């Protein structure tokens, strides 16, 4: 399993077995919403704020 760290609180993150690109996950430590960018190597970014009203 590949590791990464939360861009908000730097906490270590381990990719779940069925992790998928574009998946939204929650940092178990600080609760930030993160977006999986790549699975191998495992990398995440903070997910963009939800649009104030609905998507396009």
């Amino acid at each position, binding site marked *: 399993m590949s590791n990464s760290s939360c861009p908000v609180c730097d906490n270590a993150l381990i990719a779940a077995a069925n992790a*998928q690109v*574009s*998946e*939204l996950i929650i940092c178990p430590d600080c609760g930030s919403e993160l*977006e999986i960018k790549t699975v191998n190597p495992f990398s995440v970014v903070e*997910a*963009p*704020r*939800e*649009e104030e*009203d*609905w*998507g*396009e």
Partner: protein
Amino acid sequence: MLIIKIGGGKEINIRGIIKDLSGMKEQFIIVHGANALRDELAERLAISKKIVTSVSGYSSVYSDETMIDLLFMAYAGLRNKRIVELCQQNGINAVGMTGVDGKMIQGKRNTGIRIREDEKLKIIRDFSGKPFHINMELLHLLLEHAYTPVLTIPIIDEQGHAINSENDDIIVVLQKEFKAGTVIHFIEAPGFLEKSDDPASVISHLNDSDIALWEEQAQGRFKRKLHAIHKLFENGTSTVIIADGRIEHPVNKALEGYGTIIQRSRYGKYN
């Protein structure tokens, strides 16, 4: 100033609309769709259209690069230029533009749509977004030199990408900057119908607060349409007409009161 929205349905009588417009004294801008043409072209080119439904219940077309090509061919190419051609044949010196031309309609790319896929919450990005600014300098330049703008998607985002957007949202931004008194939408129905399967159930008059109520109960695309009309009134429109674009004289009939006339209620919250 009048804003004319020509829907993209197959049965819209564009010839009739343009003929009527050629007799108009008041200046107008045309905004048009081409969804029927786009779908037909997609089918003939064996391009399957991907619909995504966001977790908050709104469904929309997933606009990848191929979809933007389709918009350029169907909206910006075939439909826009056939409307411009018809205008020229009726003495209307039209100039067709997308939002990309001269940065006519500037928008912000969607940061992403949250969807559920393989039981996972995911975020997907495409070439779509919302308009927030019109290049009024260019629009006035055309209007002041007696050219009639005929506008359509795609619009342009902050990085200069062509992005898909909703014509109804474009009209809201256009109306906000133009303060157009009247907006006429030509659709493939006699107007708003009490019962969607009964053409005779046209509601002839509504006011803006009715629209707000309707919006709460509506779903999907119709919810979005009502929301856009609601915003028009917030930005100062006085009259929105939902008229039948299929009949012989769509514009004349609309101005004679056929279809659904939506007006600002005297005691609405915006006065």
